[in-house]
């Protein structure tokens, strides 16, 4: 197996020709512009790559198997956890984050963090949004069933109940109460 660092000597020569500039302080944890000259390439073994691949296949079979077990709402959670384990395997080994510049991992972590913020704050709205009561056309608080603050009386609904099936114009999300998956 050839070592990629074979070229070291050649670069050392380059260094000597131009070595007039003192290296800058390396306080930036190796992220500085003038690190080592040669390309850092950690070469993984065939064994490692195939082992990771087999792991990915095993987890795929696992996720298919778990899906047919009735877990209710936990199914989604289990599926996401298994998928995340697979994702970590791919990122760490196939995408070389294990031996890579730590800043690249930081980019990934930042992206995932902001996705988390996106999920958390959007679902925070949806989960606490009052549901629409088809009887009154009002928005009602989820827990108590009371009229929600600021909710709007639908005059059409008050007069006749015949338009029951229609989605009221105020629908801001959950169009009908029966479909609401929230346990009452």
């Amino acid at each position, binding site marked *: 197996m050839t070592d990629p660092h074979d070229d070291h000597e050649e670069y050392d020569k380059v260094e000597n020709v131009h070595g007039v500039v003192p290296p*800058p302080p390396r306080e930036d944890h190796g992220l500085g*512009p*003038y690190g080592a000259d040669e390309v850092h390439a950690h070469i993984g073994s065939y064994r490692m790559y195939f082992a990771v691949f087999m792991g990915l296949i095993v987890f795929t079979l696992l996720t298919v198997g778990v899906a047919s077990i009735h877990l209710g709402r936990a199914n989604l959670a289990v599926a996401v956890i298994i998928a995340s384990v697979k994702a970590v395997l791919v990122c760490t080994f196939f995408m070389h984050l294990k031996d890579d510049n730590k800043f690249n991992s930081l980019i990934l972590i930042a992206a995932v963090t902001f996705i988390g913020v996106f999920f958390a704050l959007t679902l925070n709205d949806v989960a606490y949004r009052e549901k629409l009561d088809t009887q009154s056309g009002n928005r009602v608080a989820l827990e108590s069933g009371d009229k929600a603050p600021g909710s709007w009386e639908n005059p059409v609904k008050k007069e006749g109940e015949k338009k029951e099936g229609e989605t009221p114009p105020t629908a801001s*999300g959950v169009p009908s109460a029966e479909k609401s998956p929230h346990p009452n």
Partner: protein
Amino acid sequence: MAAITTDQHGHGGHDGDPNVNYLNNTRGIWSWIYTLDHKRIGLMYLAAVIFFFIFAGVMALLVRIELLTPGRTIVDPDTYNRIFTIHGVVMVFLFIIPAIPASLGNFVLPMMLGAKDVAFPRLNLLSYYIYILGATFAVISLLSGGVDTGWTFYTPYSTTTNGAVVLMVLGAFIAGFSSILTGVNFITTIHKLRAPGLTWSRLPLFLWAIYATSILQVLATPVLAITLLLLMLERTLDIGIFDAHKGGDPVLFQHFFWFYSHPAVYIMILPGMGIVNELIATFTHRKIMGYRAVFVSSLALALFSFLVWAHHMFTSGMSEYANMVFSALTFLVAIPSGVKVFNWTGTLYKASIWTASPMLYALAFLFQFCIGGLTGLFLAMLAVDIHLHDTYFVVAHFHYVMVGSTVFAFWGGLHYWWPKMTGKMYDEKTAKRVFWTVFVGYNGVFIPQFVLGSRGMPRRYYDYLPQFQTLHMVSTFFSWILAVGLFWMLFMFIQSLRHGKKAPRNPWNSAGYEWGAPSPPPLENFVKQPVFTRGPYDYHLATDAEIAED
């Protein structure tokens, strides 16, 4: 380490010839169209954004003229809706987002790093053409009927109204990718192309601001892309994701839209803050007070901007609980903004201030940013916002941040780096007169709008009650003064290109890194690979030769 390659490579084969610079080292239109030089690309961006600024500015003038009287003044309501939409879309997506990072940033970023170019020069050129392509779609949309949705494209109106919404949205979608690629490029450049000695703690504050901006461009813009893509699919294939009749959620569109567009506000303002740091340091010859606090606050603004987007949606039908959470989070933004203002004021305190024209813009920035920022606190407060939402108060607030802060900083930066970019000086006396005209005109337009809004004048309305007319007339009148000032500024810069006297290397006696290069710079920016041994604001360490004019 092969740090000094400049000596071997020369500058386009004319090593040492002071008359050869990036503007004249190659000639002909194709040498510009295919250029990979960040300075030329920066100039091309500058020309494009100025063109769109003038175009959208004329639209704003039309809006103001229409609002001179209640009822019809010059156009019918439908045309009015199209005019204010085109003003918003073009100003936001084609002017203010690329304005500072892609034009001035592109020009000075590698120079401040002591680098020869950005990390990916071809990607840089590609992002310029992507931007032009996006702009082309926006113009086609305009020619085929325009759009009357407002720049926010809210569903369900945007999915049901007539007009060329898909084309306009496609234009914004494409322009977004230009912004993403610029961000990718700048992050990489700042990481990998800093000259020897340029440590993170010596990085100019403008670059810290650009760095924070780039993070936002990379991580927020794609959400706009997917939002606009879904909107296009909604209109063309009727997929129903945002359609309440089909079980979709229109409020979700607003979440998606503002998840990008709130951070976008910081894509606009952060580079402006960065320029102001450079201006204040140069024209007081002082180190910015609390360097660390200033760059940390830039990064904090970038972070917080992701947590507050739904304060645009307090009246949208979002849950009351989410309203409270977002209102509380929004106040966080005031902290880093306050830190910055404190540091700038502290730097100015008892300083000997040279009120050259760029510095006047920086001082106006401080004044107007305080107004824009503090009125933002009113709007962050849930109860007050219910009253002020979608009124002229909001219009005035965000124009104080967008125009009064960002665009004033852009003008300041343009004056400041103009000698470096073109090698010509402009007429300082004219520049000061222009500044005062613009300053008076600008504030005259928007201060009356605060009053209008707090009295209940809704934004985007074609017609209004008679009691609002006086203030509308004042606002319109000052918009003409502002327009005169801006055309005067344009004329002044054109005059400078034609007759301006040759700019010295360092006309402002700045210790900033970019002033070490000749004006205008050669192809690879510096005659010799610079090695930085002091910070960009260390006037006590700068030699006399460094801060001399030539």
